[in-house]
């Protein structure tokens, strides 16, 4: 993103956090996809506004580590972190690892389950959000308790690179709990419908009860 983020939001450089937030919401009203369904240009502008606001909130790259807010939740490591795409090349010596670029460091940290550290490196290169950036971020965020953002970033990764099996697997893993829930909810609602149909009409409710009203979900 090349434009000055303050220009994107239309605020002066000294603007307060509150003023930036207000300007952000003014633009969200204009461009948000929910208010502009199917409008690709609006969606693009919304992305630009989101990126600009994010950049302003998190300050200069040098100070980013201090200002970004994350959950401090319990760590639940994503179990397939070992498969965090093409890591093999960095298996050896740590000498001079500080010279590696932040993406490579983030990848290493995710592999090692050092998620907070990974997030700091990802923060440093957050202006260039590739599919891989989103993938690593998804794992790190989800594992540190930011499950909503984790899911969002997993979707972003798949969106940007739908053919990548690792990304798809990650998204599936995150969606699995919700899918199982939806299946059970469907079964619940169907069985309730059956019960309602069964107990209407000619059946005496006393006769029906033993047959229809059992079989709970848990």
């Amino acid at each position, binding site marked *: 993103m090349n434009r000055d983020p303050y220009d994107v939001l239309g605020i002066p450089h000294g603007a307060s956090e509150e003023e930036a937030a207000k300007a952000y*919401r003014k633009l969200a*009203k204009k461009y948000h996809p929910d208010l502009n369904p199917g409008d690709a240009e609006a969606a693009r502008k919304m992305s630009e506004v989101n990126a600009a*606001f*994010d950049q302003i909130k998190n300050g200069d790259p040098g100070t980013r580590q201090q200002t970004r807010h994350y959950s401090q939740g319990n760590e639940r490591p994503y179990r397939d972190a070992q498969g965090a795409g093409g890591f093999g090349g960095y298996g050896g010596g740590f000498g001079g690892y500080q010279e590696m670029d932040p993406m490579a460091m983030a990848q290493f940290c995710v592999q090692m389950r050092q998620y907070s550290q990974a997030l700091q490196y990802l923060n440093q290169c957050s202006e260039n959000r590739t599919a891989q950036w989103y993938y690593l971020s998804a794992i790190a965020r989800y594992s540190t308790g930011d499950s909503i953002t984790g899911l*969002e970033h997993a979707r972003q990764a798949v969106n940007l690179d739908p053919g990548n099996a690792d990304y798809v697997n990650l998204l599936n893993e995150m969606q699995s709990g919700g899918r199982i829930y*939806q299946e059970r909810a469907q079964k619940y609602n169907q069985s309730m419908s059956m019960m309602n149909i069964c107990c209407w009409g000619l059946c005496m409710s006393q006769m029906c009860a033993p047959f229809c009203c059992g079989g709970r979900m*848990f």
Partner: protein
Amino acid sequence: MFGYIVANQEDLADEEKKIYQAFYCGVCHSLGSDFGAYCRSTLSFDMTFLAIVLQSLEPDPALQDAERCAVHPAKKHSYLKGDCLDYAAAMNIALIWQKCQDDWQDDHNVVRYGGTKLYRKAYQQVQKKWPHQCDALADGLAEIAKMEVRGETNPDLPTAVFGKIMGELFVMDQKAPEAEALRHFGTAIGRLIYIMDAVMDLKEDLKKERYNPLIAMEQLEPVELLSMLLAACVEAWKALPARRNQAIVENILYSGVWIQFNRAHPEKGKGEKRE
């Protein structure tokens, strides 16, 4: 914010319906007898849910009684009583008072100002008996308010705070063996409530340029997100050693919570489809 944690009464068996209503009437009765008849109108389904959950963990079922009241003047109706219902009533007062307080401070809503005066005495009673819960509520909401001012775009942050609030409200007895599991369940419910509210309010909030934690989400799939949060609620519920009324809770978690959402999004048919 509240009113999503309700039962789908069409799908409750007659006996379950009676129990659900007896809980609702029970919390109402507690509100009246502990805080005054004028407090009865503050009753929410969410706190009825809390009463049901807490009572399900008790060794014995709640005691039943019957009365006539302003809402049911014709004949006596059943209501339940006990510590769990009294506690739910107290939490109800705390939430109402806090809401009035926040609304008054936010947009100087005169009606809400009246509310802060009206419920002040009741709230002070609750604060004296349940200081931990009242503090958790006030502190948590203050934290969320700060996030709103700075326009926090990470939805997980305010969600976690609201979850934490509800987690604390769900624990009546800190020393009970199931306190931790209850806190965990309350937290999951809180997270769900917060995001359900955000999903339902998103369009209006955008139009009115109000804060909403989901504005910056570019890949939002509401059903998927809510299902993920509900999966966590179900998991936490299963970890609780409930002895009764599981069917009612199940109804709420699998069906009732979607009532308002389905009404607002008929095209996004969830597992609510009837054959």
